[in-house]
């Protein structure tokens, strides 16, 4: 699929489909509720006290446009 005859849309979807095959079937449905929640809850408690104050998250449209992975990382990644 990675050729000049396919569109960017097709190439990206092909890439994503390959990644999709790595997801185990049981990971696609919700996990056991209470035990899982208790574990996350305890971890949230621990990390909240052990680390610096968490960053304030900006969920505005501008932040989504501004912090795009390609713009933030792309240039430096491509330079490796």
């Amino acid at each position, binding site marked *: 699929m990675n050729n000049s005859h396919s569109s960017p849309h097709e190439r*990206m979807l092909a890439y994503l489909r390959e990644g999709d095959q790595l997801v*185990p079937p049981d990971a696609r449905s919700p996990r056991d509720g209470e035990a*899982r929640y208790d574990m*996350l809850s305890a*971890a*949230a408690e621990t990390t909240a006290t052990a680390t610096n104050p968490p960053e304030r998250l900006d969920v505005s449209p501008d932040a989504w446009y501004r912090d795009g992975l390609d713009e933030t*990382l792309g240039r430096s990644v491509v330079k490796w």
Partner: protein
Amino acid sequence: MRQLSGGGDDSGEAHRRLSKAREAALMEDALRAIEPRLISSVTRVTRDYHLAQDITQETCIAVLQEFRRGTKFEKPIIVFATVVARNKLRDHWRKASSSERLYDEPPEHARQLASGPAAGLEYLELLESVKTAISDERQAAVWELTHVWGLKGVEIAELLEVSSATVSRELAAAEIKAKRCRDDEEPAPA
């Protein structure tokens, strides 16, 4: 008649506890719903299921911490979680890329470095080619949120603060442009 709760201050306290318990139950439900979605989308992007599990877990913890700080989620929690996951992925790749520059060969113990940067680079190049083809910021965002992050139209509308109709229109426009092959734009010379 039997009262369900005590009177006076006790009643207020009981009500607050009940309210908190309900909120916690809602949060638990929300996390159960978003976790599989995040694992799927992050695995699709990274091609590393274990890394996706780590990022998803960190994201769920961040959502819980935000909830406990008393944040009122004005947008759907999956929107909040998607933004957190993308930031964490960005930070992971940034760290991985800077670590890799320090070594001639990646250290053996660095499992994530083996697949992360390579998959990250390929993903970023593909995303850049899509965005270049679309050449419109909002349309490209709608395309990415739909196909990469698996958000629904109403969720994208909330994130980008537009109507659902606008999301549908922008997605259609984006797909037409992204589906154009390079050959469509640059016909071979006769």
